[in-house]
């Protein structure tokens, strides 16, 4: 390709494919076998019919002529059976390969994503992004079956065919090679080159059309109120016609390639026939061979048939690889793991001049935050949504690095703390409760893989979910639906609390711990939580301190306002 970055873009993925080199070779060999049988079948049949006709004519003319019918007959039957069986086995084998590649790709990318920090991840939770990720992975897992094996097998077929033809009529072999190789070159490089730009941008056009559609749907009320719906719809349709323009040019191009295959194969067949006929006329080859050669060329068309569509859309594969490369690169800067272990017992927390700025935001999320919390304290950090509470939580759990300032936990600088120790000693109950599509037990084991079943039951009892779990026909093996959807919001919250109970952290961050629970249950849980929190440092993140849902045992109150700790908060401290 002209663009030097294409090989570089695809290199990591080709390297991943190369791990299964032998399977890929075997798959290509099966493809070649199928194709070879198809060529052999038609060529040999043509030879046999002609030879029979010539022999029959000779016999009719009273000449002594014989033809061994068993060898070609057997050959024809063999080719017919091989072609069928090889095609079936090839499809099965290659699909198996593709699915193995899919597993490899998913595993590899998941490992990459597992290292990303919250800033990168937050953008990637949107369903749009996740759908595109799956689509990109699918694009790459079929890289082999669309873009690697077919051109390789086609090239091999063209070369072998030309060689075979050249055995009988050298000049015909050269002519066939010249025609079919230039066709091959155009179908791969030429089609890819012309289709690169439109196929590369197609996905982003679809994406833009999609955002516009979402906008159109979400803004329906305002658009209708301001009478702007038709104007906005025109924008949407404009996007659509841009996309269709791309699709039209891609369709035109791939259609051109497809017809070109038949034209070039036809021309090669015609040339082979003409040159073979000349050779026959000069007595160089028999009549049966003269027929066999063009038929062999004709049957080779199948090898080239898949190329135009695949290579016209090479840009889409390239774009998918670029997006995934970007994803891999975004996890590249990963911080060096620390080695300090956190002490047992409650952890002190110190923030000194901590600032956090999200890229592209007009104002920093946190600005010069100073906070010193002795071990065992219980801080209530209040503020409106967007004031920066969640940012504090993300910083303390090392999901985000601070833009400036220093954070210390239990006396150690946060970035020096060993990963395992940090995760064991710092627990958070966030606003979002992630329940996985798995059993109830599995969702609890997340907190403590070594827990035994009785501990799980006690954890459930602690949040008053044990009776409910017992009433389920499958008990702890009950699957929790997509994102935990079969559970009510309150049940999910309690399950998250149960997860918390299974651990033994020194610092606990609780974001609106009783959100979505009714007052009576909240009161009962509050008492139990109070007990469990004894001997731990606690940070409550709450909207405001009022009403029935005030968390237990607050010893200190700070208020965040637009990313800063406000002074007035210290005065409004109330003991819990």
């Amino acid at each position, binding site marked *: 390709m002209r663009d030097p970055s294409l090989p570089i873009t695809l290199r990591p993925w080709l390297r991943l494919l190369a791990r299964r080199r032998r399977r890929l070779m075997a798959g290509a060999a099966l493809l070649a076998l199928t194709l070879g049988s198809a060529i052999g079948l038609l060529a040999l049949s043509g030879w046999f019919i002609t030879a029979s006709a010539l022999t029959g004519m000779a016999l009719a003319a009273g000449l002594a002529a014989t033809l061994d019918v068993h060898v070609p007959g057997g050959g024809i039957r063999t080719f017919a059976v091989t072609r069928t069986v090889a095609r079936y086995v090839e499809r099965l084998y290659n699909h198996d390969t593709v699915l193995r590649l899919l597993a490899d790709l998913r595993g590899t990318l998941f490992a990459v994503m597992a290292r990303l920090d919250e800033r990168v991840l937050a953008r990637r939770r949107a369903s749009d992004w996740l759908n595109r990720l799956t689509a990109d992975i699918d694009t790459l897992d079929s890289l082999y079956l669309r873009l690697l094996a077919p051109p390789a097998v086609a090239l091999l077929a063209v070369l072998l065919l030309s060689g075979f033809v050249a055995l009988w009529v050298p000049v015909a072999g050269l002519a066939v090679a010249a025609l079919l190789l230039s066709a091959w070159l155009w179908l791969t490089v030429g089609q890819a080159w012309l289709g690169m730009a439109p196929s590369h941008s197609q996905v982003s056009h679809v994406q833009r059309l999609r955002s516009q559609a979402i906008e159109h749907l979400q803004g329906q009320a305002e658009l209708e*109120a301001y009478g702007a719906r038709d104007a906005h719809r025109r924008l949407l349709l404009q996007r659509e016609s841009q996309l269709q323009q791309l699709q039209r040019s891609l369709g035109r191009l791939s259609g051109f390639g497809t017809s070109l295959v038949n034209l070039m194969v036809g021309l090669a067949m015609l040339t082979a026939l003409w040159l073979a006929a000349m050779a026959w006329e000069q007595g160089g080859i028999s009549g049966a061979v003269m027929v066999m050669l063009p038929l062999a060329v004709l049957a080779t068309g199948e090898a080239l048939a898949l190329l135009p569509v695949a290579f016209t859309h090479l840009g889409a594969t390239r774009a998918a690889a670029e997006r995934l490369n970007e994803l891999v690169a975004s996890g590249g800067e990963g911080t060096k793991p620390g080695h300090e272990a956190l002490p047992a017992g409650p952890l002190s927390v110190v923030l000194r001049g901590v600032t956090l700025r999200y890229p592209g935001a007009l104002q920093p999320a946190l600005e010069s935050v100073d906070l010193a919390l002795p071990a065992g304290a219980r801080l209530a950090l209040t503020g409106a949504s967007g004031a920066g509470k969640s940012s504090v939580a993300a910083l303390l759990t090392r999901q985000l690095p601070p833009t400036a300032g220093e954070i210390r936990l239990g006396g150690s600088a946060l970035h020096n703390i060993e990963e395992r120790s940090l995760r064991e000693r710092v627990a958070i109950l966030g606003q979002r409760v992630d329940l996985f599509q798995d059993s109830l037990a599995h969702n609890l084991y997340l907190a403590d893989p070594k827990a035994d079943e009785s501990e799980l039951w006690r954890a459930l009892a602690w949040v008053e979910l044990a009776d409910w779990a017992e009433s389920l026909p499958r008990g702890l093996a009950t699957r929790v639906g997509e994102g935990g959807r079969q559970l009510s919001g309150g049940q999910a919250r309690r399950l998250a609390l149960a997860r918390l109970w299974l651990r033994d952290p020194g610092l606990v961050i609780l974001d609106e711990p009783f959100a979505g629970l009714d007052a009576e249950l909240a009161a009962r849980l509050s008492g139990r939580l109070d007990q469990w929190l004894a001997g731990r440092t606690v940070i409550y993140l709450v909207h405001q301190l009022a009403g029935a849902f005030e968390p237990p045992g607050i010893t200190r109150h700070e208020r965040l306002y637009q990313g800063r700790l406000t002074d007035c908060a210290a005065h409004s401290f109330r003991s819990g």
Partner: protein
Amino acid sequence: MAKGITEPMGERFGPELTPRRWLAAHAAGQRVWLTLAALAGFAVGALTIVQMLLLAWIISRLLVDGASVASLGGGFLALAAVLPVRALAQWGQELAGQEASLRIRRAVRAELLDHLAAMGPVRAGARHTAGLASQLVEQVEALDGYFARFLPQLRLAVAIPVMILVVVLWLDWLAALFLLLAAPLIPLFMALVGMGAERLNQAQFAAVSRLAGHFLDRVRGIATLQLFHRTEAATHEVHEAADDYRRLSMRTLRLAFLSSAVLEFFASVAIAVVAIYVGFGLLGYIDYGPSPQLTLFTGLLVLLLAPEFFQPLRSLAQHYHDRAAALGAADGMVALLSEAAAEQRTGRPRPVREAGQVVSLVNVTLDHPGRGRVLGPLDLTVRQGDILAITGPSGVGKSALLQLLAGFVAPDQGERRVMDGLSFAWMDQRPLLIPGSLADNLRLAAPGASDAELHQALRHAGLADVVDALPGGLATPLGERGSGLSGGQAQRLALARVFLSNSPLVLLDEPTASLDEGAEAGIIESLRQLSDTGRTLVIATHHPALMALATRRLVLAEGRVVSDSGEAKGDEKDDERRDDA
């Protein structure tokens, strides 16, 4: 939906709108292009026969009749001429099919958008936005293969074999009999292929979504896995799940590929049988039926046509998944299109009974599917200059009442009357932000507004300082969905739009929810200014500060009006006005 299918749909598609009928109706709309595609495909088939005929003829002239190569120049030239014409016809088939598909996809999108517009913000908004967007974009795209390739190919899969059969019949009836014997098997194998593909598709679909679900589920929860230090185990699990899926699908594929292998087998065997039959016939081993009359020409031509007989069917089998994809997509779209569009909504509302009334609801009720009665029966008249706060516990129908006033949803009973030529401004918790400049976003409400007017609106909304401080000013681009703006800033932008719109009636749905006190106070001050310019405000809220702004309070409970502080006073006002007049 209790109302069932709307009339226009019923007229167009008969008593029941099914995915198949709906697809057929759209295909009928592009009959010309689809027919063109089929005709071009038919021409390709015919020219292929001509090509094979010429090939067999040239060979036969050379080998049987002993003609010289030089004397057959005409034959070679004719063959050389057929090839580009056939290539052009093939290109034409692709282009016509594509054009039909592009046009149909555009028509489908327009149909969906029309329907969504008719449903209105409330009924359409009740659906998952991402799901609807995917129907408008990806699902419409999923129709491509069906119209562009499958439908034209479906006609060719019948026409071309018949054409070839006629030619072979003329050449050698026994060979034609071989093909004819296979012919009744064709629909059988088509069904087999179809069933295989469909079963494959269903099983695959379930497995794919389960597995895609597993992977995405874990990706979605990566932050949680990190916090529990479980990413390594999860990575292993992801790989395992993908591998399980592979084993599962291979079981299905083994069967599914069998049906296409059968087709492949027929294509191969046809060549083999014909070759051996013709060969033996030419050798004189067979003296039954037409065999003694076989010549190299007829024999070779039958051989060359045998694979072409099965080729259209093989192509159709390749495009079979396009059909399944289109049916799947059509299923969802038909379900959406069958949902009643409230026709009353789009009709012209009757005028209010008295001057000074802006909008009134008379004895209205509102039901939500699956939730029963949401509102009413109730009466409400909004008068000029009102600052009406609608309050009540959450879920009581505040938003629904506001939507009724706006006409976003039609009442199930009763009627909505509006002032002559009423326009209104709307603002809720999630203002619409379009990618484009700040100015583009403002002009949504008033396309003709000057920059000076935009600045003035921003000043009223309390956003002028922020915008002035930006180096790009009004031309500053907003990222996708307004990224870069805080929640409060986005609300102020929406408020600036309200100022720009000059609409006499302003409907606000919880305009300060999720804002901190400072931002809330700013918005309230702006609303007060808005009211000072003589606009009528209706605010659904439970925030005390907003309620304090109101001159009239309406309390809802269980969908009914419990108290309306302005009812009596309002009447008095009306009386006064009447006295004045």
